């Protein structure tokens, strides 16, 4: 059975890992937004607007993930 301090230390490592991952992911999701705008410029179809919308929603949800990780944990 793990000692309480061992468990706390493990949770701290997990917390730092989640923080780093969520920040890196937000950068990635912003790059997806930029990429979608570049892709939409390459050729246009009727799905361009939904793609842009989804890319922005994905980015804002990734920002929400940062907020969750930094406030909840």
């Amino acid at each position, binding site marked *: 059975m793990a000692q309480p301090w061992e468990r706390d230390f493990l*949770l701290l490592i*997990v917390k730092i890992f*989640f923080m780093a*991952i*969520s920040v890196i*992911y937000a950068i*990635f*999701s912003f*790059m*997806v937004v930029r*990429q*979608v705008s*570049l*892709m939409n*410029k*390459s*050729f*246009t*179809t*009727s*799905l361009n607007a939904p*793609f842009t919308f*989804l*890319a922005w929603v*994905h980015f804002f*949800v*990734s920002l929400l*993930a940062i907020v*969750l*990780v930094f406030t*909840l*944990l």
Partner: protein
Amino acid sequence: MTALLGQFVREPYGVHFDGQDGEERILLFLRQHIIVNLGWILITTLLLFAIPIFDFLLGLGGTSLNELIPTKYNFVLRFLLALFTFGYFFENFLSWYFNSYIVSDKRVVDIDFYGITHRRFSEAPLRNIEDITNEISGFGPVIFHYGDVSIQTAAEMREITFENVPDPDRVQDIISDLISKIKGESE
């Protein structure tokens, strides 16, 4: 005809590419065969069921994820995994959707996206095309009838390859007919 999810669309409706001239008509619009997406679709499905499967396996051992880690960590883990799964699906779908090959009445165009940081836009006028080869190689391509069409040009950009397109022999035939028509007109 619509090019929403099509992989072999003749005279697509509502599609315009970057640099298209006003009177230029798109005659053929191609994407990679849908079967090439199988790998990432399977991984997405696995990611979707990762936590339920993990929960099930822990249940066999008489415990659960909630008992192993605090509830708030459990919640954040599920939230992040759902987000990553969507991101992985979205990025792969976009790569397939926008990696496209276009044959217009003036040129062939190859638009490639690799990951989120690389874009390549190649084109060659039909009159500069010297040779076209199609190749179907491997189990998947033979079963589902897709393959590569290599287009040799006289221009600086020596070769344009349409990768994993459906009916590569038909694509070759259509482009060959177009070239014959254009070179016949100019003679």
